[in-house]
């Protein structure tokens, strides 16, 4: 029986070899045929034939095992494919549900993405700090240093193993675990440490409690304005301080671009995914595409052309969808609503594509961009800012409150948050101001300065006003709960954490609480940051000693030498570790799989973990495929942004 099975396997192996050989030869023949069509010489045709024949196994493997499944998953992402049931094309429904947070799957995806960003934004810097610290320790020539290097690297090999993760479970046990016991002992010995430790518990629980509230979608109320206002205010403050320089112009552009991309992503997910698409989005999309073309036309003509082609194809696709929905009736009212903006965008695109690029052409197209932007704004602004909503701004500028009543739970929970206008407007305003400052630059310094100071004052007051009103809003829930004797469910974990400063008996409940599950995971990843440590170590070894000696002669202290020599010199290694760390953080899986409990499952779940659970446990293949493509786009975007902005701080030459 066993020998029969072995023969069966051998048989298949041989068939596979035959298939590969024949396919490779056929691929070579095809390549030769193409070469002949291009009238290449006989010698070149032979070269091409053999080249493709020998590369054939890899090319065929790529098509069968990489490209094929990738395209299949792209197709599945537009279907409701569930294992065991028939496949139906559902268009963008999977993407819509996930990006708009619709239904349970959308909510879970939002939660998992927020968890992933937590790992990326908090975990990666901590991991890199740990790796760099270890590398600097190991960069000393001490006896037995090689053994230490091995010991420090060992967690990388062990970290994903079930036995080690089980050991971590024991070490992080809330009651009697090594970590908590060690901390308690240290606290008993040093009262300052005890206080700092309790402060750490308090801060971590409050921060994570707040984060959990956001993940749950509890309304932030006025605090949703505080972050954009504070962000813009701080950026503007940095631009105002000192003399104007090229670096500040770059900072303004960079701020505008990054916030702009975030706003665009949010608008896209909110607006373009809506059903039916509002025609205003066609104007907004056209304006964005044209702005990109204008900005790139002079220096990067190829990229500008690509945007033209992609936008034209998108316009065609939307047009086809509209006509399809209206039964191909061009004169129908519904069709006209879409075809007019599509026609205008197509005309502007055509104008941008035909003829040489001139300053006048740029000016005309900028005017078109402005017009399209105004139309899009005019469609949405009245709804968003209608009634007394704009009063929000006026009240915050004078530190007033916008809350009408603090004794009605429904009002606080639903009516008031719905009444507040979207925070996206404030992010948009920040983008416009920053872009304006960058454009005004050196040419109109007074206007630039006036805009900077005015906007900084505006955003500063908004930040303070909205923060104060937000405090009142959060406090209202607590007061109401106390008055009625009911439990407060609004940002419940945040309030629980804030309730009282931890006493001496309090310990972190690493594995048993949503407040601590993510910090526990980050702690384990920090412990296993040996790969980053190795890369830093190699980079540290390549820093020329002469630089340090010269700095010492110039009187630079240790910190200065670290900041001015070490960090710039190891910046390529730092950049590599950040890129890889962010990608790994977004794909965190094994540790979650091993450490989750029913109560901490959702607070740990990363996008990759949810993808696995939905696809392989719950057998929702279509939805899992859509998740994986969204994750691909996010990872590519973040990586591209990191590459784009690495030029200013990563130095590849000594």
């Amino acid at each position, binding site marked *: *029986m066993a020998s*029969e099975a072995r*023969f069966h396997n*051998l*048989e298949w192996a*041989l068939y596979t*070899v*035959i298939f590969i*050989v*024949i396919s490779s*030869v056929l691929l*070579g*023949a095809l390549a*030769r045929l193409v070469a002949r069509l291009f009238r290449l010489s006989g010698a070149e045709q032979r070269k091409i*034939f053999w080249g493709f*024949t020998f590369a054939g196994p890899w090319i065929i493997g790529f098509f069968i095992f990489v490209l094929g499944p990738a395209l299949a998953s792209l197709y599945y992402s537009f279907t409701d494919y*569930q*294992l*065991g*049931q028939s496949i139906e094309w559902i268009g963008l429904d999977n993407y819509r549900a996930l990006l708009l947070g619709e*239904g*349970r799957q959308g909510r*879970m995806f939002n939660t998992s993405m927020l968890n992933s960003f937590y790992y990326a934004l908090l975990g990666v810097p901590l991991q890199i700090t740990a790796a760099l610290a270890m590398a600097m320790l190991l960069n000393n020539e001490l006896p037995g240093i090689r053994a230490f290097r091995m010991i420090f690297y060992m967690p990388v090999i062990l970290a994903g193993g079930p036995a080690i993760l089980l050991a971590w479970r*024991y070490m992080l*046990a*809330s*009651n*009697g*675990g090594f970590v*908590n016991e060690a901390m308690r002992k240290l606290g008993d010995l040093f009262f300052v440490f005890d206080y700092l430790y309790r402060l750490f518990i308090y801060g971590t*629980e409050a921060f994570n409690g707040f984060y*959990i509230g956001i993940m*749950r979608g509890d309304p932030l109320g006025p605090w949703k304005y505080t972050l954009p206002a504070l962000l813009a205010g701080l950026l503007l403050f940095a631009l105002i301080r000192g003399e104007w320089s090229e670096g500040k112009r770059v900072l303004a552009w960079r701020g505008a671009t990054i916030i702009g991309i975030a706003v665009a992503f949010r608008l896209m997910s909110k607006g373009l995914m809506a059903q039916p698409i509002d025609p205003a989005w066609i104007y907004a999309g056209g304006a964005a595409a044209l702005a990109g073309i204008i900005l790139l036309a002079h220096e990067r003509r190829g990229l500008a052309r690509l945007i033209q082609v992609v936008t034209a194809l998108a316009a065609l696709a939307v047009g086809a969808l509209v006509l399809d929905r209206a039964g191909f009736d061009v004169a129908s009212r519904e069709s006209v609503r879409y075809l007019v903006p599509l026609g205008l965008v197509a005309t502007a695109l055509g104008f941008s594509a035909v003829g040489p690029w001139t300053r006048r052409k740029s000016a005309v197209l900028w005017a078109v961009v402005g017009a399209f932007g105004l139309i899009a704004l005019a469609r949405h602004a009245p709804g968003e800012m209608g009634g007394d909503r704009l009063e929000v701004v006026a009240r915050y500028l004078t530190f007033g409150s916008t809350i009408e009543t603090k004794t009605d739970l429904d009002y606080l929970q639903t009516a008031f948050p719905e009444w507040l206008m979207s925070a996206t407007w404030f992010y948009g305003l920040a983008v416009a101001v920053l872009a304006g400052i960058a454009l005004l630059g050196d040419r109109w310094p007074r206007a630039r300065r006036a805009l900077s100071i005015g906007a900084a004052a505006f955003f500063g007051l908004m930040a303070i006003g909205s923060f104060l009103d937000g405090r009142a809003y959060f406090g209202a829930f607590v007061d109401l709960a106390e008055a009625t004797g009911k*439990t407060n*469910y609004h940002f*419940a*974990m945040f309030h*629980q954490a804030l309730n009282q400063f*931890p*006493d001496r*008996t*309090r*310990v972190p*409940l690493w594995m*048993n*609480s*949503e407040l601590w599950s993510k910090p526990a995971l980050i702690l384990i990843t920090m412990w296993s940051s040996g790969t980053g440590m190795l890369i830093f170590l190699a980079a540290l070894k390549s820093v020329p000693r002469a630089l340090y000696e010269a700095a010492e002669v110039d009187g630079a202290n240790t910190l200065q030498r670290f900041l001015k020599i070490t960090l710039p010199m190891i910046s390529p290694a730092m950049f590599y570790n950040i890129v890889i760390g962010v990608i790994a953080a977004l794909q965190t899986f094994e540790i979650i799989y091993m450490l989750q*409990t*029913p*109560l901490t*499952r*959702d607070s740990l779940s990363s996008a990759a973990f949810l993808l696995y*659970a939905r696809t*392989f*446990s*719950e*057998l929702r293949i279509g939805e899992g495929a859509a998740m994986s493509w969204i994750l691909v786009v996010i990872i590519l975007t973040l990586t591209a942004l990191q590459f784009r902005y690495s030029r200013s701080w990563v130095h590849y030459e000594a």
Partner: protein
Amino acid sequence: MKRALILALVLVMSVLAVLPGGPAAPAEARQTQVLEIYITGLTEDTMNWFNDVAFPAFEAANPGVDCEIITGGWGDFDVTVAGWITTGDGPDIIYLGSEYAATYGDLLMDLDPYFQDWEDWGQYLPAAIDTVTYDGHVRGLPLLMSPRPIFYRADLMQGDVPLTFADALEFYAANTVLEAGAAKQWAFMDIGNDLFDAQEFIAYIWSAGGELYYEDGTSAFDSEPVAEAMQYMYDRRRIMRPTEDTAGLPPIEGTALESGIVISGIFPMWAVPPTSDPIWDNVAIAPYPAGANGSPLIQVFIDWLSVPAYVDDPALAVEFLKFIGSNENAVALKDVAGFTPTRQDAWDAIKASDPVWSKLLDLAVDYGRAFSDIRASAELRPLIFEQMTLFLTDQQSLETTQMLLKEEYDYILEENGYLD
């Protein structure tokens, strides 16, 4: 080009020349029918028993049949089995867990015609037959059972074994010891050590007199018994964890039942000391407490062997099921693999030799309810985790939790074709 084609031809010819003699195989080998059986998590001893004892006996009784056993881990169980059953290409007999009859439904063969005249069928525990039944038709053979009662340390506990929610809460209050913001002794520990488990939640819904579904097939998460079960689990949690920052028990070496710091709990049989251990003299076994309008029960998990609908020769597969389900093989599997038989006539020897199992089996008959007919179970589990976590940790009210459980489970049921 010509040379390349000749080269390819030569390669093909040489490969064909060295191919093992498939076409020239003896006539009897070609007629051999292979019967593939998949059973999850088998030990080497059990594999050996199948290969050395069971298969030769079956093959001798069925000439021309060649049995093959396949095993795998629980980690990839769902993916593996779903892949086979839904693509129609896999083993002839597939091992399934307790709740899977509703998951695969009509993708599994209706075995009524094969079992209706089988005289042994009457020996099987009714709860086990319920487990393997979908849409009124039997889909497989119950292979093993795992009753899951509550074990009590009678020598350590204060008060009697509770049989109602109210008594249980009093019992937990009397037997829990907290000190300096941490647990020193817990009156109860559940299977997940987190004072919450989805299967346990379902058990309390049943013991509160409720069901998971109304007659029209929609979810009954908005019913009164569900609210009672939820409140009971919440109150129990607050007794043992008055606040969410109360630390749990220290890590336990060995089994919780032996630790002396856990007074009662729900444990699978592999997580308790061997039944020959003297500690069992001090252990009481009882069903789950009941709500005001319910009755105590014990959850019984049945693992079973199914025949997928794609199988070409179901008669042969059923023949094997009857063979492996015979009294003699059921007893042998208990000895070799520790599989507790689901047929009651195989219990005599167990009851005579093992008082713990005797008690367990009697309780299973009196209070047993199979963990079965859990529709869309793979999606229900994470939904319960999510919503109950919010409720138990004071992040969501009972009413909102019930409403969301109901709404979202109805949506899942509809998506999976359980509702019109």
